[in-house]
């Protein structure tokens, strides 16, 4: 049985790669077939994952398959798959949401001249992401981690003829590299201390001997957290994600909202047993700070995709905060529901953009309610879910995180969480009101029409998932992973949160009300944003994202300049001066000195000859 399951797991992983290879090598000229192959691969992967999941539900034994791959000295690396609660949930999200987005892309990317390339990259991404999810050791995870970065680079820069897209791709890749460097260092230190990179082995080593990481625990935790900071775009490496919106919208939905950016959170949950209290504190604070920062910036953005991107940042901050608050199951829960509604929001935004011929400024939209009913309703559901409206999925997962903060006694982060919830409601309804209600603010709106079915059906499916995701037992399922013995709360308990931690639940609902009212007050029927006039300074700061890009550019220029100066100094004085000039100078000096001996006078030579003889004789006799 286990063998069959292992085989299935291999298939889940390698089908998308196969699709990517087939498209890249044979189907470049046949875009339709390429799309079919890519969609088939991910759908079959999804079905197989469901089979695996069902099997696992019935017989909850962890599926592990591995083949030895590399053996260098003490370093034994396996190429293995690991299917348990955590990875199955994540694989379901990746293949499920991925399937819908693949299908959506069929219509969205229609007519693009690199149609086949798009699907090849998308399949490559799916493969890499599944590799991260299913890998059973750090080393393999790191490889797929980089592969995900590569496919993200390919997809952000998909329209590489646009300079902004090419720059954004570069920025994303380089920013990720910084985090990955720390991640790799962390893995190496971890291996050097414990001698293993396999998750299950690490777990048992730490369970047997908790002191094995003494001294390096904080360093290892923070370095590994570095990887998550890069991938999940946490402060201070958050700058790449908004720029990544230069990619096609389905890519933003799949990679930069639902799955890849969640990989950092997933990884933190996977190795949550590693972290010591101090680094957990730092992780939680970083998450909370990122959530607040991104939510503030989102308030004054005008590009529909950028608002969603900052919202994603903010929600990722929530998840990281949850991990830091010792609630990985809450983090995974929010990750899952967020994947549903954020993917839906992005697809909805894509639908709007598609209808308006690639117009992304929200102040040139408006009044789309009647033109695009399906998009309108699904977008409304997504917005409510993101804000955390009861009984939509976002309410439950956000409540899980807030109550975690409340239960831990970390009221500071609790307040931040509530504040972020307020800001989220405010900017999401600002977006919603400006885009869908009010009058049309541009001509393009008059010609807008509902997207084709291929695009609207994924929206509907995701809307159903966003509505129901909160009470179908996702959190209970994943809780097994972290506390197998804990008593399982009943599922379909929609009133559960109010009974469990009423403070968090009511605070959440209250701020939604405030945020909603404020947004209505300011943006109902507004044709332009009043905030820049009333609060110019604040608005300018928010609009410019707190000048992080400028600060980084300045900082990088400064370091680069000083490094260049040092290198220039080295080159000038060490290489050019000491080595090149020095060699030539000393050779010339000795040459000139020796030339003095070449007098051309026979007798000088005779004298030198005799002196040489004298020297040799004395040397031989008296040494």
């Amino acid at each position: 049985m286990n063998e069959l399951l292992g085989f299935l797991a291999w298939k889940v992983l390698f089908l998308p790669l196969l699709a990517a290879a087939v498209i890249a090598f044979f189907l470049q000229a046949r875009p339709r077939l390429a799309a079919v192959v890519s969609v088939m691969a991910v759908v079959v992967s999804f079905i197989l994952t469901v089979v695996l999941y069902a099997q696992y539900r019935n017989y909850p034994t962890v599926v592990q398959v591995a083949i030895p791959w590399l053996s260098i000295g003490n370093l034994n690396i396996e190429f293995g798959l690991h299917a348990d609660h955590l990875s199955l949930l994540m694989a379901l999200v990746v293949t499920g949401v991925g399937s819908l987005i693949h299908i959506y892309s069929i219509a969205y990317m229609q007519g693009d001249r690199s149609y086949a390339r798009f699907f090849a990259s998308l399949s490559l991404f799916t493969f890499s992401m599944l590799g991260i999810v299913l890998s059973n050791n750090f080393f393999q995870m790191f490889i797929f981690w980089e592969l995900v970065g590569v496919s993200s680079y390919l997809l952000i820069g998909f329209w590489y003829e646009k300079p902004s897209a090419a720059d954004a791709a570069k920025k994303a890749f380089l920013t990720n590299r910084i985090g990955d460097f720390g991640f790799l260092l962390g893995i190496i230190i971890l291996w050097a201390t414990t001698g293993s990179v396999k998750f299950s082995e690490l777990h048992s080593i730490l369970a047997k001997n908790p002191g094995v990481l003494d001294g390096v625990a904080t360093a290892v935790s923070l370095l590994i957290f570095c990887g998550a900071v890069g991938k999940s775009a946490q402060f201070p490496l958050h700058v790449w994600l908004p720029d990544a919106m230069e990619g096609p919208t389905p890519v933003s939905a799949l990679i930069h909202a639902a799955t890849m950016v969640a990989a950092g959170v997933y990884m933190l949950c996977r190795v949550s047993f590693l972290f010591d209290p101090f680094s957990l504190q730092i992780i939680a604070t970083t998450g909370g700070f990122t959530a607040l920062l991104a939510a503030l910036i989102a308030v004054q953005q005008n590009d529909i995709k950028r608002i969603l991107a900052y919202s994603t940042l903010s929600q990722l901050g929530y998840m990281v905060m949850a991990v830091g608050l010792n609630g990985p199951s809450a983090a995974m829960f929010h990750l899952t529901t967020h994947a549903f509604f954020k993917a839906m929001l992005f697809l909805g935004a894509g639908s709007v953009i598609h209808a308006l011929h690639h117009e992304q400024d929200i102040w040139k939209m408006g009044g789309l309610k009647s033109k695009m009913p399906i998009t309108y309703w699904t977008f409304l559901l997504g917005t409510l879910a993101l804000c955390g409206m009861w009984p939509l999925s976002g309410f439950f997962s956000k409540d899980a995180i807030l109550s975690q903060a409340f239960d831990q006694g970390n009221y500071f982060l609790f307040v931040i969480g509530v504040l972020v919830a307020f800001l989220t409601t405010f900017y999401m309804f600002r977006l919603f009101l400006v885009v869908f209600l009010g009058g049309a603010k541009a001509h393009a709106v008059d010609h807008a029409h509902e997207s084709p079915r291929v695009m609207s059906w994924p929206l509907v499916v995701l809307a159903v998932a966003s509505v129901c995701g909160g009470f179908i037992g996702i959190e209970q399922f994943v809780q097994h992973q972290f506390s197998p013995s804990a008593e399982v709360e009943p599922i379909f308990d929609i009133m559960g949160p109010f009974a469990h931690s009423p403070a968090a639940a009511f605070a959440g609902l209250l701020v939604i009300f405030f945020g909603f009212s404020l947004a209505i007050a300011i943006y109902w029927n507004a044709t332009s944003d009043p905030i820049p006039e009333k609060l110019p300074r604040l608005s300018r700061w928010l609009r410019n994202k707190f000048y992080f890009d400028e600060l980084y550019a300045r900082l990088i220029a400064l370091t680069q300049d000083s490094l260049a100066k040092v290198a220039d100094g080295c080159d000038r004085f060490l290489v050019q001066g000491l080595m090149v000039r020095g060699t030539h100078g000393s050779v010339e000096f000795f040459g000139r000195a020796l030339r003095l001996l070449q007098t051309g006078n026979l007798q000088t030579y005779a004298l030198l000859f005799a002196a040489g003889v004298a020297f040799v004789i004395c040397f031989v006799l008296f040494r």
Partner: protein
Amino acid sequence: MSASDIIFYIFAALTLVCGILVVANPVSRNPVTSAMFLVLTIISMSGLFVLLHAFFLAAVQILVYAGAVIVLFLFVIMLLDLKEEQRRHVNRVVAALSVIVVMVIAAAIIWTIWQTKLGDGLDSAHLEGSLRAVGHLVFGKYILPFEILSLVLLVAMVGVILLSKKELK
């Protein structure tokens, strides 16, 4: 101290003094004087050869050197019509350095000879360098080098004739 010892000291002293006068004559700088003292050196050296019972070599020494080589020197001096060498400025530092270097070499070798007691146990010398014995060796064991030597002399003669031709290219 036997008679032969006294004779050795006399000849040795003569050889060295005349040698010094060849090289550094305080009175005259004329090459002819040097040549004359060279003759004296060679003659006193052939005296030393006699003391070593190398009678044939003593004769050859006087015949070849005093008879032929020195005459050659004198001819050349005469041919070039060399006046007394005008006193030129001698670099004293170089001269002092040369003397020191040469003395170091001489001292080192003499010290070695003295240290190793090279002559001890060999005092019962009785080898006679008579004409008969040398002749036997030259025309017996060393016949081939001897013949080659005659070729060397021939080549030298040809070379000298070539060099002496008026137009040397």
